[in-house]
């Protein structure tokens, strides 16, 4: 019965949240009223009664949508994001909104204004970010699927650190309407699944052209489930060896190398490839993402909604106090960076140059995909680190995204698949990057891998 499953989900969410802090709001009343609604639906629904958690930067009508920020701490969305609407139409039931780095800016969840979510494998450690809450909600067994968002790796990196499957689709595959923008040309809604099959079912429902998003593509959505068990024999997987060098944790390297051997054993052909511009990814990413963010976050000014600082005597003072008190340090850092790179006299040196290099990164991928079905790299250079370990060193934090950002820059899809555990029992992910619209291929590769080489372990904190 749906009602029992939803009740159990809500109970688990509430019971574990004290330990994990993965939910910013648990929507019991909403979920229970949705049961009645979906029960009345007569046609078969692909996600009938499926409980799902939604990252708190995706609009859910009537529910708090805080983006992990004080500036929207009291903001209730006035409409459903297109992805949420499609989930609802498919019979899914939103059970809560998940914790995240403030405005999706971070790789550890620690920039959340409401405290970091904890990694269920070791609650002293970060779950990764920015979609840490959504990753934890799945990894801890509360839900099988959740929505996150990606700008530079915010789904794949926490998926890797939490030992679950994470998908960032092709740019334009899932409508961004209702996803609160961080960096519009890089943002994607992404999906976490306990397995790739869970994620495939959700992707099939929410993908496809949306008239409300001019950047969503009119490309047919295939039945991912129909091809997810196909034989992967003969698939070509490219490995860019230059990315396996400095800065990569040895245990991660070993696990990822092992995943390459495993793919070979499944009949995949492994070839060496080169991505010469990938090493500029982080630099390019932090120029473009912060530039767009500085503009996207301008609307949070205390005039119309959200937090407004008290006691100002002029409009300018109200703006400054509101944004000073409403945003956390990482968000302010990025707004300042972005404002700087767009400012008069610096635009050509930074933003314009970054766009040119971005085109080269994209061209790198096009060359490689002429001869490969997918590219394999680590997802994250290390396993989950200790809470507080990197908060004083923003650059070290930014390097967490070194393997993931270039897929966002190029707009191509990528997934993270669990591929092993470190000696202290922390999960490690391997990343597969595909050509435009090749989500089906990535899901197929991931699913076959998961079935043949399951992780075989459960997190320390797990809902029964």
């Amino acid at each position, binding site marked *: 019965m749906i009602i029992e499953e939803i009740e159990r989900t809500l109970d688990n969410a509430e019971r574990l949240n004290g330990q994990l802090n993965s939910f910013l709001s648990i929507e019991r009343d909403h979920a229970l009223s949705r049961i009645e609604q979906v029960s009345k639906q007569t046609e078969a629904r692909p996600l009938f009664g499926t409980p799902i958690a939604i990252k708190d930067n995706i609009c859910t009508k009537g529910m708090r949508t805080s983006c992990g920020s004080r500036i929207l701490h009291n903001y209730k969305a006035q409409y459903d994001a297109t992805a949420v609407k499609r989930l609802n139409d498919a019979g899914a039931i939103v059970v809560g909104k998940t914790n995240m780095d403030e405005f999706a800016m971070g790789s550890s969840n620690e920039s959340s204004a409401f405290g970091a979510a904890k990694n269920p494998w070791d609650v002293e450690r970060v779950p990764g970010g920015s979609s840490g809450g959504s990753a934890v909600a799945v990894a801890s067994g509360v839900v099988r699927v959740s929505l996150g968002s990606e700008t530079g790796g915010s789904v794949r990196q926490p998926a890797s650190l939490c030992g679950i499957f994470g998908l960032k689709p092709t740019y334009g595959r899932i409508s961004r309407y*209702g996803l*609160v923008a961080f960096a519009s040309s890089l943002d994607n809604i992404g999906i976490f699944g306990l397995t790739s099959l869970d994620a495939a079912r959700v992707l099939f429902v929410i993908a496809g052209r949306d008239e409300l998003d001019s*950047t969503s593509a009119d490309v047919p959505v295939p039945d991912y489930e129909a091809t997810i068990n196909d034989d992967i024999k003969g698939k070509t997987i490219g490995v860019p060896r230059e990315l396996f060098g400095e800065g990569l944790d040895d245990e991660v390297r070993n696990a990822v190398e092992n995943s390459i051997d495993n793919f070979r054993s499944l009949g995949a052909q492994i070839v060496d490839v080169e991505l010469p511009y990938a090493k500029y990814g982080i630099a390019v990413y932090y120029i473009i993402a912060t530039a*767009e963010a500085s503009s996207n976050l301008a609307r949070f000014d205390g*005039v*119309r909604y959200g937090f407004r600082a008290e006691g100002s005597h002029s409009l300018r003072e109200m703006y400054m106090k509101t944004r000073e008190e409403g945003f956390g340090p990482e968000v302010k850092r990025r707004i300042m960076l972005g404002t700087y790179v767009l400012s008069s006299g610096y635009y050509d040196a930074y933003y314009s140059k970054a766009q040119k290099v971005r085109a080269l990164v994209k061209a790198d991928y096009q060359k490689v995909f002429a001869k490969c079905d997918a590219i394999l790299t680590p997802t994250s250079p290390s396993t989950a680190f200790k809470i507080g370990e990197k908060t004083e060193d923003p650059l070290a934090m930014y390097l967490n995204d070194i393997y993931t950002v270039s897929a966002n820059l190029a707009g191509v899809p990528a997934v993270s698949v669990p591929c092993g555990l470190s000696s202290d029992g922390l999960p490690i992910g391997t990343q597969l990057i595909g050509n435009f619209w090749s989500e089906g291929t990535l899901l197929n590769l991931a699913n076959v891998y998961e079935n043949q080489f399951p992780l075989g372990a459960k997190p320390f904190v797990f809902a029964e």
Partner: protein
Amino acid sequence: MKEGWEAVIGMEIHAQLATATKIFCGCAVETGGEPNSNTCPVCLGLPGALPVLNENVIELGARAALALGLEVQGTSIFARKNYFYPDLPKGYQISQYDKPFSANGTLTIMTSERDASGHATEWKPMNIHIQRMHLEEDAGKNVHEGLPDVDKYSYVDLNRAGTPLGEIVTSPDFRTSWQAYDYVNHVRRALQWVGASDADMEKGNLRCEANVSVRKIGETDFNNKVELKNLNSVRFMQKAIEFEIERQIAAHEADEPVAQETRLWDEKNNQTRVMRSKEDAHDYRYFPEPDLQPLKVTPDFVENVKARMPELPDVMRDRFMETYQLSYSDASQLVGDRSFAEYYETVARISANPKLAANWILGEFTRELNSSGKTADESLTTAEDLAELVITVEAGKINNNQAKEVFAEMFATGKPAAKVIEEKGFEQISDTSAIERIVDDVIASSEANVAAYRGGNDKLFGFFVGQVMKASQGKANPKVVNDILRHRLVG
């Protein structure tokens, strides 16, 4: 202008494109509604909402561009103009920057200086270079009046936010305030003509800014320029430019600096005053709008728009002069407004007497329109009905005074000419035999006068005409009466 000086003036016009809905959402473009009633997540700038370009903006933008001699660009790019203001809900305006919708236009306007009483001295053609017309969204409005606690709070009404605008920017080609005045009027009529904009300055759907500097004649460098705003009518704009030219010349001559700044026209005191100085100028941090794809417009689309556009006013004016042998002045007046020009052309064609038609249109018809406040479109008298009246007059069936009386009735009631003429009993008798009979009667009953006339008293001719007209109750065609009388009185 003081001897030895010249003004350098560039114009920026914001014209509201006359779409039914906003540029990036489906909200209605309407004035006068409840504050914030025509809004949605997109034009309120709610988190997560995204813009989608209204196709009709492309159509009307293309019409406007073509009417101003601009080239519609194959690819244009929307860009964000970033600044904070309460009436700007996203903290940026979606506009266009280095890749505008249209560019590189040459527009020929007619312009003239005015004498002391405001009359044009000599109309001459002048070529204006229009650099660009780009597309953008309008902001909302801050409201400081008429609401509770306005001393403590300002209010924001976002009904106007997202209204489509075309911003038309010229090179600094104008040398006098009247050139700028004639230019704005030209643009206004052109936009109305092609249906791209209502272009009504009083309603705020056409807004002008002028960049004004002065220099000694012969100099080629530019001095600091002043941007003039709050120009709520073409006349205010002209006055503001004139004031500013004189102010700047006086400052230069007194060796006082002219600051690069924005000034407002102060209608009450008839002067400009500082709004903000250059130091307060914004760095708008333009960058391409990532939420919208580059706007592609194919040559086919442009050709298609062109094919559906009406003949432009200047082309029509020249054609009227050539085809209908009208004077420059008459032809110019006839193309003052599109419905008026089309009305004229229908009357001219049906009546087959374009000159007489022009006299009627510029005379009685214009007088009636002015006193009733109607446009040609709204006239109860159709062009076909007026043409019928013109034909009747030309055929001599009624005289001119009667025709004017008939037309007044037609305009007031919408009745056709024949009906009014019949009701008024104005139908003239032109039938020669009927008039001959009356003439014979008059001659038979006025023997003494006939003798006197034949004896040399020519002045009596008028007496006979009067008698005949009286006997015919005014219906006899005076020309026919004259002919017959002259013939019979010879004896």
